[in-house]
């Protein structure tokens, strides 16, 4: 009836000829995809024939890896403006469907420093969105940090959410030394896998690294004493502290959002259960009490609940337990194996290892409606960890019987292996924003 009335009204209006209502077109579908962007190779001004680093290439890689951008390959560019001061011909970019354009320039200045300037343009509106000028030292790590910062600025300007390119990842590598003995190493690298630094190594297994909320310390499990113990270690000073070495299992530490407590797994009470350890008072509180295995705790962003893996239902599934009420609810129902939870910073998504038959893949689930989406298509994926902006998940997988690290965008569209210098990498964890 309403439709008929409306069409009658429309007819009347259109027959009337005048005062036509504007046609209204509803757009409900769009392309799910990355934003087309072009990062033109930066101009270079200096004594040396080439710039000390290709900033544009790094920014391009960053933005691509986030899954949110699809940078135009350099060879497709119709022009290469390399001076942000000069006028840009936006037509050249519009015809390519590029929505955003980054033009920059690097210039050698005194004391081995460089001035780097870039501008981000809106191609279709012919406007400048943002831009910045940096003075940066000549060290590779400084230059890289500056480039990641540019990535962050662009990311935030275009997506209105914080970038996570200037963060780090921690992971464990396993190799063998010259004598053939195993060598376990705790590494910290840039989020893109570059510039790894060894924090700790041991001939005994190292496991389950976890970042403190400030990103200054790591907690981890080490078998260096022949049996598992949990340590915390300041990554800058190297100062470490044993916080848990109870009988049986000491595993899967997880820092509370306020940094004062650790959730961990202890089997001192029989089967592995979740406990809360107050780092100052060393007071230990038992959170779960079951005959099944309860493990891999993670804090909700509010710090009022713990999501963990339990096989109390027969198969490993994710559960949530409140810190106060001790109420437990099952979160996952899809698939026979869901484990190793990691929560998005806003707490709305949970990523996990989702096992089906003998395939273990990374999946994300909407905490509100339980909708599950599998993000990867490899078979032995493990240890997912959300980036601090929730846009990506880093995880470990196997390639040619070797552990490798990969990152996947939360929509699953972009997966990229991180190029690591060495070894068999496992258990990556993404750092929080350093404060």
């Amino acid at each position, binding site marked *: 009836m309403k439709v008929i009335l409306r069409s009658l009204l429309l007819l009347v209006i259109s027959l009337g000829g005048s005062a036509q209502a504007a046609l209204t077109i*509803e757009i409900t579908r769009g392309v799910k995809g990355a*934003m087309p962007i072009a990062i033109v190779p930066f101009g270079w001004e200096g004594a040396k024939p080439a710039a000390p680093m290709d900033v544009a290439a790094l920014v391009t890689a960053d933005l691509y890896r986030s899954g949110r951008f699809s940078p135009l390959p350099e060879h497709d560019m119709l022009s290469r403006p390399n001076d942000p001061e000069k006028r840009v011909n936006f037509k050249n970019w519009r015809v390519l469907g590029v929505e955003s354009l980054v033009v920059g320039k690097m210039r050698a200045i005194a004391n081995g420093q460089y001035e780097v300037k870039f501008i981000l343009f809106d191609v279709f509106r012919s406007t400048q969105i943002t831009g910045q000028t940096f003075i940066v030292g000549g060290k590779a790590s400084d230059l890289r940090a500056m480039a990641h910062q540019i990535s962050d600025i662009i990311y935030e300007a275009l*997506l209105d959410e914080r970038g996570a390119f200037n963060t780090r990842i921690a992971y464990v590598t396993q190799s063998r030394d010259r004598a053939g003995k195993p060598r376990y190493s705790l590494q910290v690298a840039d989020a893109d896998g570059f510039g790894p630094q060894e924090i700790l190594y041991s001939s005994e297994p190292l496991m389950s690294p976890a970042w403190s909320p400030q990103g200054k310390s790591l907690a981890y499990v080490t078998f260096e004493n022949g049996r598992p113990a949990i340590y915390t270690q300041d990554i800058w000073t190297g100062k470490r502290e044993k916080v848990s070495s109870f009988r049986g299992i000491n595993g899967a530490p997880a820092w509370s959002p306020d940094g004062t407590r650790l959730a961990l797994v202890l089997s001192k009470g029989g089967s592995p259960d979740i406990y809360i350890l107050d780092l100052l008072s060393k007071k230990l509180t038992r959170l779960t009490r079951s005959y099944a295995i309860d493990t891999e705790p993670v804090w909700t962003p509010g710090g009022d609940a713990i999501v963990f893996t339990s096989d109390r239902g027969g198969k490993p599934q994710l559960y949530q337990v409140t810190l106060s009420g001790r109420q437990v609810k099952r979160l996952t129902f899809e698939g026979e194996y869901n484990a190793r939870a990691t929560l998005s910073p806003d707490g709305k998504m949970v990523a996990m290892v989702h096992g089906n038959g003998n395939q273990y893949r990374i999946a994300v689930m909407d905490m509100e409606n339980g909708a599950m989406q599998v993000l990867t298509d490899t078979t032995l994926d493990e240890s997912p960890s959300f980036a601090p902006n929730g846009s990506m998940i880093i995880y470990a997988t196997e390639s040619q019987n070797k552990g490798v690290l990969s990152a996947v965008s939360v929509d699953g569209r972009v997966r990229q292996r991180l190029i690591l210098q060495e070894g068999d990498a496992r258990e990556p964890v993404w750092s929080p924003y350093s404060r």
Partner: protein
Amino acid sequence: MQHPRFLAYSVLVHVTFVAVLVLSLDWSTKPKPAPHVIQATAVDESKIKAEMDKLRLADEKKKKLEAAQQKKLDDAKKASKREEQRLADLKKKREAERRKLKAEEKKRRVEEKKRKTEEQKRKAAEKQRKVEEKKRRDVEKKRVAEERRLKEEKQARKQAQLEKLKAEERALEQKMRQEEEARIKQAEERKRQAELERVRKEEARIRQQQLAEEQRRLDAAREREYQSIVDKHVEIIRQKVERNWLRPAGSVKGLVCTVKVRIIPGGDVLDVRITKGSGNSVFDRSVETAVLKASPLPLPKDRALFDRFRELEFIFDPEG
């Protein structure tokens, strides 16, 4: 009817007129200061005769008187002879007598002359009287004739008036009848015309209605055709914009953004204006960019339809 009254008036007027005429006639015949003869003369002829006789008697008496006088004169003469002496005296006396006679003769002649003059005068008066009489008679005759004429005239006028009145009445009647007939005829004509007009109007109305109906049908058909073209292009535009809309991958749900888009005839997007933003700048920008990227929008070839596309409203509602 007023005619009798008019008639009465008319008669009255005529009587009055005639009366005035008669009176005025009397006045006009009043003679100028007349000689006394007139007074003596009456209308009676016997009186005239008596007068005449009287005059003749006087004449004869006079003649006798004269003869006596002659005899007396002869006697005197004889006495003279006898009385010579005394004649002389007598002569003297006779002279005196003769002179006296002479004087008397003279006097008589004067009187005679006077009488003659008076006779003449009388005759003239008579003549005059006769003329007057004739004149009077003529006047009378004339008056009578006039009276008759007037009477006749009056009669005739009256008759004529009557005739005229009658004629007028008849004419009036005729006229009225004619007018009545004309009126009736006119009324009938009017009625007929009105009926004709009504029929004509009715026919025109029906024709108009049919035309309007036909026009409506044509309009509706054209509108349907236009509408189908518009719908088709709305769909094509929708698809083009959707192809160009990169939905931000953000996790925020329920974002809706409405934009008004102005188009120039080639389909090129003139500008995109956010009329109701989602509150999310990334989402809103993606919407703006989608429309700008979709430019030029595919418009119908028929320029007549351009007006409908001049301004478009897009509602970007991923959950719509």
